């Protein structure tokens, strides 16, 4: 064994002293030869004879040297290095080809790397907590009733903690916003209310101070808070003594006990948080802890070591059955689901990101096909070189290896350029991406490994076929030929045409996808939301619950604020609403007095909105029937409601709903029968993509919230409106933040930010694919024309008209496109189906798209063939035939 090891070391060592060893051995052979000559001369031979026989007896020195070299060093590595050096030399000799190839590769690999870095950061990278594989979310759902996953209530949480055998720890998490005052302008901060086990469950450490302990979770205990590093460095000025300081949240003093590092976040509900407080200390949710019922507390848990998700799900299923028995009204038929935490985060964006990754992968394939075609063109001009190599004794494998090394060098250079492009791309993407993505996107080691692997894979993709094809020729023919003029036969042209056809097929898929998304996005932007977004500004005012605790206070505040704002010049057309459309919905159950009860286990639901009188006028929502709310609809007068058109049609078909009563409430208020006094037109309140559904409006005075959004229709700019509102609010209470100031059109715009992002990117990729495919066709047709110059010359000499030459060349181009479409269209149909979740008002087999895309491709192909075709038509038969 040691002798083998010594051999290996000696071989590696000899890599560094190659030339010296060569000279040494040459000297040794010389001395051996000299001794042989001496011997021969002693035998009496004349010197020439002695020399000749000595040489024969020793053997050919070149061969001996080669054998010696092979035995001495690492021939595989040495020949690889040699190939690399040669590859760089050859690439330098044809700068045009090299530049185009590297550029194309850089584009393909760069785009892939950039998109992959987003996918990696948001979807693939394991969560930055201890043992993330063990983390799960536990949620409540009733799939039969279409109730989406939601949380539990606090009593359930305690029961689970006590009774389960599968989780080593559990915690509850709910999101809220609280006002943050005492440091400059009052603002709102995003708060995560957590049970005390939260931080130890995740296994994360604070930057300073400590995380929560179980005493912090006791109701009535001292209010403590953990802040984020961003808040510490920002509003608190990186105060070195921040631990122990107090901050004011919702007008209450909280003591800072710890600071979490800037990269810690828990994006289950909101992407980032500024502040964490114990659940018991939250003004809204704290008191809810003792209340039974409701679904407001999402739960997370850590599986015990060795327990699988399936086992945990099985135990939760038994719990569901038991709870269903104990509480048949609420919980019969419910599912307690267990999902890995990773998939619960960032659910929406996954599909879109994978679609983009697929698209950019197709783009790379097209780029590789182009480069393969370029390589094959080069191979033709290097045919003699290959033939000479073969004649000198190179094996086929050796030549293929050399060509693959050239491709690999090209691939690696392109890859490095691509990584550079990716850095720039990631910066651009970060600006374009919808802002609610939790994790920062960086080009880090995982992404770099991906880029490297992709470069090597691409090298094989574009290098293998040309390498194999270049070595497949007849030796004598190649050595005899002068140049490639008379063509190497239709087999080569066919191969290249097939590649071009494949590019067309891939481009078809991309173009179809882009076209569908563009049409979908165009529909989305032109669909009417049901209200007029022009010239409307909005702002959010929230009341801290510790200070404004009762409904009367909220109602009084609303009335006062509205009066003041309406008194401002230019702001007379204002109203309050909670929630505003496109800014969240509150879907609540209702029942109709005097109607047949719904089937057991099913509910009637509608979106609930609390509005002030004049809201419909500000938003220009048509009042179809009855009346708007008025000052007489106060807290003490008879409860009233206004319903939307679709609710009227669904539940009061053919009859007049006015005067009928709906029973509903926003918990925890009791359900009251409310008289329907008006019907308004439908609006799209959830998002532009969702069809309008049933809505019920109640007067703000009869259902106030601890905060409202002001909407103002005014010719003044949004900042002027906001300034006026801020002044008015400050006059009422100087510690109230006015947040989320924007124009209504901006608010609607942000709901389509994601579709816009993916449409723009996919459009960009499709355009690039079209460009590359056009370049591919151009290359292939030019090549074909140059191959067939003699043939065309003969045709023209025999009397063919220019138009028949045109038909000949364009015919070839048409064949490529037709074959490409024949393959591409069915594949595109299939992929379109995968996109259907991303489409709005567009069918996956949209006829317009499937007609427009082939037409566009055909036109592009004709345009790309234009120059070579003209060249073909202009061939002078005399010149063409003269070259033999």
């Amino acid at each position, binding site marked *: 064994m040691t002798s083998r090891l010594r051999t290996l070391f000696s071989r590696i060592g000899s890599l560094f002293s190659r030339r010296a060893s060569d000279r040494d051995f040459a000297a040794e052979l010389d*001395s*051996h030869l000299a001794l042989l000559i*001496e011997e021969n001369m002693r035998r009496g031979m004349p010197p020439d004879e002695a020399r000749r026989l000595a040489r024969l007896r*020793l053997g050919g020195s070149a061969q001996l040297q080669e054998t010696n070299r092979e035995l001495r060093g690492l021939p595989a590595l040495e020949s690889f290095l040699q190939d690399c050096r040669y590859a760089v030399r050859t690439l330098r000799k044809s700068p045009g080809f090299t530049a185009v190839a590297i550029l194309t590769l850089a584009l393909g690999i760069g785009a892939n790397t950039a998109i992959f870095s987003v996918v990696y950061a948001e979807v693939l990278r394991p969560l930055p907590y201890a043992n993330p594989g063990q983390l799960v979310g536990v949620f409540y759902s009733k799939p039969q009733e279409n109730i989406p996953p939601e949380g539990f209530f606090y009593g359930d949480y305690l029961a689970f903690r006590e009774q389960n055998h599968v989780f080593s720890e559990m915690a509850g998490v709910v999101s809220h916003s609280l006002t943050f005052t005492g440091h400059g302008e009052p603002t709102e901060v995003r708060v995560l209310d957590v049970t005390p086990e939260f931080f130890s469950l995740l296994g994360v450490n604070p930057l300073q101070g400590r995380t929560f302990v179980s005493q912090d979770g006791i109701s009535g205990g001292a209010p403590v808070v953990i802040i984020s590093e961003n808040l510490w460095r920002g509003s608190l000025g990186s105060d070195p003594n921040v631990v122990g300081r107090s901050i004011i949240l919702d007008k209450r003093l909280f003591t800072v006990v710890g600071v979490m590092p800037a990269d810690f976040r828990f994006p289950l509900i909101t992407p980032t948080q500024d502040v964490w407080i114990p659940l018991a200390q939250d003004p809204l949710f704290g008191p809810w802890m003792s209340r039974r019922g409701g679904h407001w507390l999402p739960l997370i848990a850590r599986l015990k070591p060795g327990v699988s998700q399936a086992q945990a799900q099985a135990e939760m299923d038994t719990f569901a059955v038991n709870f269903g028995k104990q509480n048949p009204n609420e919980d019969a038929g419910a599912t307690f689901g267990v999902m890995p935490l990773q998939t619960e985060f960032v659910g929406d964006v996954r599909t879109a990101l994978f679609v983009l990754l697929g698209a950019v992968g197709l783009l790379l394939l097209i780029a590789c096909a182009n480069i393969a075609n370029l390589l094959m063109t080069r191979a033709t001009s290097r045919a003699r070189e290959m033939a000479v190599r*073969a004649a000198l004794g190179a*094996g086929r494998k050796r030549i293929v290896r050399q060509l693959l090394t050239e491709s690999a060098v090209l691939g690696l250079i392109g890859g490095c350029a691509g990584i550079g492009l990716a850095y720039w791309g990631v910066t651009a993407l970060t600006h374009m991406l919808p802002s609610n993505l939790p994790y920062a996107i960086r080009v880090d080691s995982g992404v770099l490994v991906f880029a490297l692997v992709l470069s090597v894979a691409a090298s094989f993709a574009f290098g293998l076929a040309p390498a194999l094809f270049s070595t497949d020729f007849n030796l004598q023919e190649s050595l005899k030929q002068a140049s490639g003029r008379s063509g190497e036969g239709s087999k080569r042209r066919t191969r290249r045409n097939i590649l071009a056809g494949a590019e067309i097929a891939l481009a078809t898929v991309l173009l179809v996808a882009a076209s569908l998304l563009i049409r979908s996005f165009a529909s989305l932007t032109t669909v009417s939301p049901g209200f007029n977004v022009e010239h409307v500004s909005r702002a959010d005012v929230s009341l801290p619950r510790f200070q404004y605790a009762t409904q009367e206070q909220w109602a009084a505040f609303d009335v006062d604020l509205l009066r003041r704002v309406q008194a401002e010049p230019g702001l007379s057309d204002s109203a309050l609403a909670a929630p505003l459309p496109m800014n969240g919905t509150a879907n609540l159950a209702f029942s109709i007095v005097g109607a047949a009860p719904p089937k057991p286990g099913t509910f009637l639901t509608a979106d609930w909105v609390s509005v002030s009188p004049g809201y419909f006028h500000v938003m220009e929502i048509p009042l179809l029937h009855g009346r708007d709310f008025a000052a007489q609809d106060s807290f003490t007068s008879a409860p009233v409601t206004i319903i939307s058109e679709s609710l009227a049609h669904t539940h009061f078909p053919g009859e007049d709903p006015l005067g009928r009563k709906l029973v509903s409430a926003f918990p925890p208020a009791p359900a009251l029968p409310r008289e329907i006094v008006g019907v308004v037109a439908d609006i799209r309140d959830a998002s532009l993509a969702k069809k309008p559904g049933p809505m019920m409006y109640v007067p703000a005075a009869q259902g106030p919230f601890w905060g409202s959004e002001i909407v103002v229709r005014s010719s003044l700019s949004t900042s002027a409106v906001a300034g006026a509102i801020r002044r008015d609010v400050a006059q009422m209470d100087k510690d109230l933040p006015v947040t989320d100031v924007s124009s209504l059109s901006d608010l609607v715009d942000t709901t389509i930010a994601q579709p816009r992002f993916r449409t723009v990117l996919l459009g960009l990729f499709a355009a690039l694919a079209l460009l590359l495919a056009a370049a591919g066709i151009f290359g292939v047709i030019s090549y074909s024309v140059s191959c067939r110059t003699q043939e065309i010359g003969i045709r023209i000499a025999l009397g063919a008209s220019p138009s028949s030459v045109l038909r000949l060349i364009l015919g070839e181009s048409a064949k490529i496109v037709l074959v490409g479409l024949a393959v591409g269209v069915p594949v595109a149909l299939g992929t379109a189906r995968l996109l259907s979740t991303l489409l709005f008002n567009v069918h996956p087999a949209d006829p317009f798209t499937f007609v427009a895309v082939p037409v566009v491709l055909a036109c592009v192909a004709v345009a790309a063939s234009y120059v070579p075709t003209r060249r073909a038509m202009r061939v002078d038969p005399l010149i063409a035939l003269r070259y033999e």
Partner: protein
Amino acid sequence: MTPFKPENKLDDKSDILQGTLDLMVLKTLDAMGPLHGYGIARRIEQISEDALQINQGTIYASLVRLLQRGWISSEWGASENNRKAKFYSLTKAGKHQLSAETENWERISSIIGRVMALAARR
């Protein structure tokens, strides 16, 4: 007609023959002391009574292998006629290897001898 010749590999010679040559080189060095390449080749030709008329250059393949394994060492020196030549000598490890190989060889040849004798008796 395929334009490509088979790869120029040393494996065309059987490994047994190579191993045997290595053994003979070691034995020669053991018997004769430090010797240069020409001397070793000449000696092997002499001992085999010129039955093994090998290309003398093939000795160098063995010498490289033995050098890499550390069984011989090399040094430039002067030959009888004051000519510069590279001399090879057996190392301790080489001596060890030689006795092990010799033992092995004798054992194999005696077994084969017995088998052959067995066959001849029938």
